[in-house]
Structure formats: structure tokens, C-alpha cells
């Protein structure tokens, strides 16, 4: 990781009085202790990170703070020194805490101004909206975050950072003296430059005395932004550490409870084999003249900043996005147009990044989802043999580590990480020759993502070529034989062998000097 400077105010922050203090917080669900005697204290002006695997109790802790869950008896809490009762916070006490969930709760089809105006109407519900004044107010508000965006921009057109900033602006708008801002995975869809912008905003909030509780999986980022870090594991507080005294490895150890072995990619066995996937001059809106060749046994990564073009590649390979020029050749068969059905026929399978929109059907069972491609093959004796189907699917669920591997459950009953594994099982069951994985470990906890990464390296056999697109440079470093980085819609560089390091990938993604 790059060295970083601690904010100058760090020492002052650590001596600041607590904005929120919670002690002996437990929460028991039927059959599960989600939180076990957790205490946490977040000081004014501090960025306090909350880390832990999925299921470690982070969400429960936040929900207890927000009053969504009422905790088990025995917990005590103070907001700015005032004792309060969690789970039955009064409105005034609620107002001191603001929560920004990962989905930001913005309406994409409305403008920034309209989104900010969704709260209580200033003049009464039926009075005409004072557009000019609103516009000015919104511009001022965004200005306090150094954002120069037209208030009448539709939210769906904003970058992820801008969306977050709007959500933060809305959360803090009009509530004087909000003392705690809770951010849940705020950087999930941001590129590295945008993360820095967000951090600048958070540091400024810190200077204003706002305490920030920052929940994230991205440990390098956590180490950069946080003053202190609380680690949860299995509902317990394992440690509270100062960020400046901690390394990423140390943090991972605390989170997982043991050392995680990095899965190193085996050397590719590329003995004069013909390419399984050849892409020639692929051009469409957002990607220009992309050409690359992938041979069996290889795991080739694609990355870059969001919007730089790499994220379009899986969609083209899946046949879900038409392109303007160029050919895609799968094991000798060339396509200038591709439909999903033809991609499936060509034994090229894509696991999309958009789980709910493209990957899985929420109210289908796991078995029904996994067998959907080539469902025709489940036809035995005049019907779809559901018992056989379940047994078949079970094996694949075991392989990808879905817990519990019950094919009869509905997908919508599963957590995000488990759904990701179901999607992987669905792709693997087709035993594709070309496997395209878009963001394969998004929303998966550390332990599981290590196992998925190991699985990917195992899948790269003599008989299969693998494409991975990911915004996670560390992931690519671990599993790829080659990494192609896109910038401004072009493949800007190719990294091979020892050049594939997280720092190098991040550098190449950001590098502005290249031909535009």
C-alpha cells in the first residue's frame, strides 16, 4: 500500500469527546447471537471504521444504532453524553445520527434538486415549488462539498462519487448538529480517484466535528481514511485498533481469525495451443478498437476506472450488448453479432456483474436458476425430473460453497454473497470453454472470496480460457496471468508476470499521460 499521511488533526481527534458511545450491546435472533456484548465509541471529528466478514454483525450493529433492531436488555448508549435507549430513540435523538446505505436511496430518474426536495416540503405540500430558490440552495449545499454540478442534473447521470456526495449532502442538509454519519460500503462502485474525492469530503466533515462510522470491505481504503478501526467477528468485538499502527495483513488476520493464504496463479500451460478467444477491433460506444487473444489455461484480467471501457467486455461476450465493429472468435468460430443463445452454443459463458438484473431470478429456487441455461437437458421421461435436478445442482452449490447448499430455497432468501456463489455455480455447471466472470467476488466476504479466487485458478485448465473483469486490483494480482488495463475506452496496457501488482494496476488505471 502506498504510504499515507495521517490527517494533522489526528491527535486532537483522539482526545475529542465521544459523539456516540454504546456499551454491552447484544442482539439475539432466534438461533443466532448476532451481536455479543459489543462496545464502541465514536469521537467527534473521527472517522471510525467498522470491519468484519459478512455475517460478523456489522449490519446488525448499524441497525441497532438506527433503531431498526431493539437490542437485548443490558445495553446502554450515550449520544453526546446524554444517556439514550437504543431501539426507541426519540426523533430528536434520531436526528443526531444519519445513515447512508449502500444503495444511497436516491431516485435515479429525478434531478439532484428534486431528490434533495423529497424531504418535508418547506412551504406545504400543495404550494408551488420555488425552483429558483431551491436551485440556489442546492448549489450552495453542493458547494460546501466542493461540487460544481448543475442542480438540475438527473441523478442517474452522476458518477458514483457525485451520487454519494449528493446522498451525504441530503443526509446532513438542514439537520444542525448532526453528530454521527454512518456510511455503509460507500466506495463499492467507485474508481480510485473518486474514492479520494470522497475521502476529502469525509476529512472535511471531520474538521467540522462530525463523527463518521465507516463500514467497508476495502481494507486499504479503510486504513487510509480511518482514525480507528473496530473489528467484529462472529458478533463479538475482536479488537479496536489505531489505523496508523495497523497493516492490511494484520487487519485481515483479525477479521478472519487466521492467516489467509493468497492463491498464487500457477504458471500458464500455453504450449502452442490455439487461442480459445480472439477479439479483433471490438468497437462500440465506450470502447474503441479492443483486440486481445486468450489461450486455454490463461486467466486474463481486465480492469480500469469505471467507465473506461473494460466493463463493457463481458456484456459483449455475453451477447447482451451489440457492438459496431470488430469480430469475436470463439475457438475458431467468428461472430460479428452475438446473441446470448449463440454464446451459450459456442460454449462461452458469462457471469454478469448485475446479479439481480442479469444474473438470477429472485423468486426462482436455486435449482431452477442454476439449470435455466440448457434446461432442455433436464428433460427425462416426459418431464423435468426435479429430484435429479436438485441432486445435480447440489453438487455445484457444494463446489462454490453456497451455505446451506439447499437447491430448494428461493434465491431471494439468500444473502448477496451467497447469491454470488449461486451465480458462479450456474456458470460453472455449463462447463464452458470460455468462462467470463464479471466482478466475481463482489459482495462476498473475505474467506469466501479467497475460496472463489482459488477456484478460478483451478478452473483455468488446458481446456478452458478465463476472462475476469474486476475493479479489485488486488484480486487481479492474485489470480491473473495477464492484466489488460483500459483507459478512456482503449486498452492502454498489458501487464504480464511480475508486473502484475496491485500498485501497478492502480497506477496504470489512473495514468493520464497515454494517448487519449
Amino acid at each position, binding site marked *: 500500500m502506498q504510504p499515507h499521511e495521517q490527517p494533522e488533526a489526528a491527535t486532537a481527534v483522539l482526545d475529542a469527546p465521544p459523539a456516540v458511545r454504546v456499551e454491552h450491546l447484544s442482539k439475539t435472533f432466534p438461533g443466532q447471537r448476532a451481536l455479543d456484548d459489543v462496545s464502541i465509541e465514536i469521537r467527534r471529528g473521527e472517522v471510525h471504521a467498522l470491519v468484519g466478514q459478512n455475517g460478523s454483525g456489522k449490519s446488525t450493529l448499524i441497525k441497532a444504532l438506527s433503531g431498526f433492531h431493539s437490542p437485548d436488555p443490558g445495553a446502554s448508549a450515550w449520544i453526546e453524553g446524554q444517556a439514550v435507549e437504543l431501539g426507541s430513540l426519540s426523533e430528536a435523538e434520531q436526528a443526531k445520527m444519519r445513515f447512508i446505505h449502500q444503495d444511497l436511496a436516491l431516485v435515479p430518474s429525478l434531478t439532484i434538486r428534486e431528490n434533495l426536495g423529497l424531504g418535508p416540503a418547506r412551504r406545504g405540500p400543495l404550494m408551488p415549488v420555488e425552483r429558483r430558490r431551491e436551485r440556489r440552495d442546492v448549489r450552495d449545499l453542493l458547494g460546501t462539498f466542493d461540487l460544481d454540478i448543475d442542480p438540475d442534473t438527473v441523478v442517474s447521470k452522476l458518477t458514483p462519487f457525485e451520487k454519494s456526495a449528493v446522498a451525504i449532502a441530503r443526509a446532513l442538509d438542514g439537520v444542525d448538529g448532526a453528530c454521527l454519519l454512518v456510511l455503509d460500503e460507500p466506495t463499492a462502485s467507485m474508481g480510485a480517484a473518486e474514492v479520494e474525492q470522497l475521502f476529502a469530503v469525509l476529512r472535511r466533515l471531520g474538521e467540522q466535528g462530525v463523527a463518521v462510522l465507516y463500514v467497508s470491505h476495502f481494507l486499504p481504503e479503510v486504513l487510509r481514511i480511518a482514525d480507528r478501526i473496530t473489528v467484529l467477528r462472529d458478533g463479538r468485538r475482536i479488537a479496536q485498533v489505531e489505523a496508523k499502527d495497523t497493516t492490511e495483513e494484520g487487519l485481515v488476520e483479525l477479521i478472519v481469525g487466521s492467516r489467509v493464504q493468497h492463491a498464487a496463479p500457477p504458471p500458464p500451460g500455453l504450449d502452442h495451443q490455439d487461442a480459445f478467444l480472439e477479439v479483433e477491433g471490438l468497437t462500440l460506444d465506450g470502447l474503441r478498437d479492443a483486440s486481445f487473444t486468450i489461450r486455454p489455461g490463461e486467466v486474463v484480467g481486465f480492469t480500469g476506472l469505471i467507465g473506461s471501457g473494460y466493463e463493457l467486455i463481458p456484456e459483449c461476450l455475453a*451477447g447482451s450488448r451489440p457492438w459496431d465493429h470488430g469480430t469475436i472468435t470463439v475457438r475458431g468460430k467468428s461472430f460479428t453479432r452475438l446473441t*446470448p443463445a449463440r454464446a451459450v452454443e459456442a460454449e462461452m459463458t458469462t457471469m454478469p456483474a448485475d446479479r439481480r438484473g442479469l444474473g438470477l431470478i429472485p423468486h426462482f429456487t436455486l435449482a431452477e436458476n442454476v439449470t435455466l441455461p440448457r434446461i432442455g437437458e433436464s428433460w427425462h421421461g416426459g418431464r*423435468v425430473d426435479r429430484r435429479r435436478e436438485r441432486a445435480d445442482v447440489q453438487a455445484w452449490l457444494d463446489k462454490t460453497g453456497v451455505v446451506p447448499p439447499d437447491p430448494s430455497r428461493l434465491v431471494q432468501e439468500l444473502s448477496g454473497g451467497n447469491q454470488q456463489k449461486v451465480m458462479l455455480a450456474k456458470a460453472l455447471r455449463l462447463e464452458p470453454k470460455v468462462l467470463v466472470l464479471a466482478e466475481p467476488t463482489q459482495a462476498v466476504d473475505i474467506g469466501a472470496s479467497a475460496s472463489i479466487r482459488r477456484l478460478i485458478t483451478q478452473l483455468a485448465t488446458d481446456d478452458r480460457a478465463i476472462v475476469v473483469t474486476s475493479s479489485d486490483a488486488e484480486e487481479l494480482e492474485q489470480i491473473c496471468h495477464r492484466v489488460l488495463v483500459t483507459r478512456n475506452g482503449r486498452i492502454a496496457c498489458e501487464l504480464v508476470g511480475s508486473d502484475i501488482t496491485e500498485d501497478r494496476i492502480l497506477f496504470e488505471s489512473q495514468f493520464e499521460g497515454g494517448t487519449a
Partner: protein
Amino acid sequence: MSRIGPMLSPRRISGIYIFIVLIVFFSLATDTFLTTTTLRTVATEQAVTAIVAIGLTVALAAGVFDLSIAGAMGLANIVVAKLMADSGLEPVLAIVITLVLMSIIGLVNGLLVTKARIDPFIATLGTNSILIAVIYVVSNNQNILGIPADFQDLAGDQLLGIPLPVFYVLILAFVVWYVLAWTPIGRRLYATGGGREVARLAGVRTDAYIICAFICSSVVAAAAGVLVVATIGTGSTEVGPSYLLPAFAAGFLGATQFRPGRFNVWGTVLAVYLLATGVKGLVLMGADTWVPDLFNGLALIIAVGLSGIQRRARVSKSEAPPIGESPPTSADRSPGSGAGETTSPAPQQGATA
């Protein structure tokens, strides 16, 4: 057998329990309810509704609304009557020609939705209105008399003491059930309805499935229209619209039964007869004319509302830690689907067209 327990759970078959309660209640409350006459009337009267609703279930399973079933039914009823009464065609030939003609309605609906990308609700609202105009033109707004007697036997005859229309319902239900529940075609159809893009990415030709689903609902509605002619002995310009809402009600109510969250044939059939039984009982008890409508409306809202609450409770329970990890994350957000795509009208997800 461990699977019997869940199968009998009220969550799946609450309708059956309510059915039994209704029958016992009305049998005790009136002298005339538990008679073979009542049974036969309800079964026959509702056969047409059940047939329309079964056809609609196919469209709903594919994720599309079909409001034009009313027009298809009405036009089929006029066309088949005219072909026999005016053109003097054999009943069998008249029926075949009618059904083939009405399949064009489904084809047009399907093309409007898949190629022109018009929202199904709006597209079929439009075609339905056009069909009603066509009915007036074709019939000259006159009922059509002179239907051959042997054609009317199709509705009037009995087999083993049971009116033929009941058999039509059972045969159609069985066939559609088999296709939807037990074949790859059915699975792909449900997948199209559950997530059109997901299905398309899995290699399902979703456009073809949607077109076929529309054709299916049109043709089945047309068959129901034909049956109405056989039942009342005239081609009437008024047939159709009155079946639209009961068919939709049955479809949505049925989706709370047997396979909650999924439009399914037996659920639909159960819903048709459940509502009819309630109405019949109330009428026999001397209820006012407005009571049946009230009963239908309340039953639909309560059933669909309750199953939605149940589902949410189940999902949020399983989101509590052990099985999963954290609640759905940003990756679960789906971007707005393209213009003209419909969201799945799975009933518990709030049916919007």
C-alpha cells in the same frame, strides 16, 4: 413422508381450507346449498371464467398482462356464430377457423410488446379497444341467432352426469399445468416472466416465448367465447368484458396458492371456484346484488395482501444472519430495464404493468 407436511401447510393451500369452511358454513346456513343442482350450476357457470383465467395464467407467467382477452373472447363469440349462422359452416370448421383467426390477436400483441417495445398493459388495452370496435362492425351491433342445435350440445351435454364444460376445464388445466410445471418450455416461460434479461442471457428466446404466451391467452379466450355461444345459443355483442376482471382476480389470487409467488394453473382454477362458491352461497342466503362484488374484491385484496406480508416475513427472517451474510448489497441493484420492458408481475412484488 417429510414432504407431506409442508404441502398441507396453510401457507400453500389456505384456499383449500377456506373452501372447506365456506362449504360447511353455507351447508349449515342454507338448505339449498349442498345439492347436486348447486354443484352443477356453479361448475358449469364458472367453466367459462376458469378457461379464460387459465389462458391468462400463461400470459401472466410470462410476465405480461393481457387485457385483450375480453375483446378476443367477444370477437370469437361473434365470429363463430356468424360462420355457422350466416355462412352455414360445420361447427367444427367454424371453431377451427375462429381459433386460428383469434391467434392473430395474440401474435399482434406479442409483436407490439417485443418488437415495438410497448408496455403490455398499454398495448393490450389498445388492442382490446380496437377489438371491441371490430365486434360492433362485424356484428352490426346485432346478436346473432340461428346457432345449430348440435353445436349447442357442446355445452349442454353431459358425461357421467357431469356437464361437458367441466371436462373442458379439467383437460385444459391439466395440459397447461403439465407444460408450465413439468417441461423445459414452462421453466423458460416462468424465467421470462421472472427476469426477462436473466432468461435471455441464459439463452432463452424470450421474445418468442412472450409472443407464444400472448397467442395462448388469445386462443384460449377465444375458445371460451365459443363456449359461451354454445351455452346461450346466440352470438352476443356483450360477451367478454365481464370476464376480464374475474380472470385477473383468479390469476392473482391463484398465485398465492400451491406455489406461492408463482402464477399457476391449479391455483387459478381453485381461485375461480372458491370465489364462485362464496358468491353462490351468499346469493342463496339472500344477499343483495352488490354483495358478490364486495366479496370478490375483499377476497382478492386480503389474499394477495396476506401472502405478501407472509413472504416479506419469511425473507427478512432468513436475512437474519445464520444462512446468509449481509443483506443485499449494491450489486443487487438492477438498473432500470429498457424502455417497454415490464417488471415481473409476480403478485407479491406489487403488480405493476
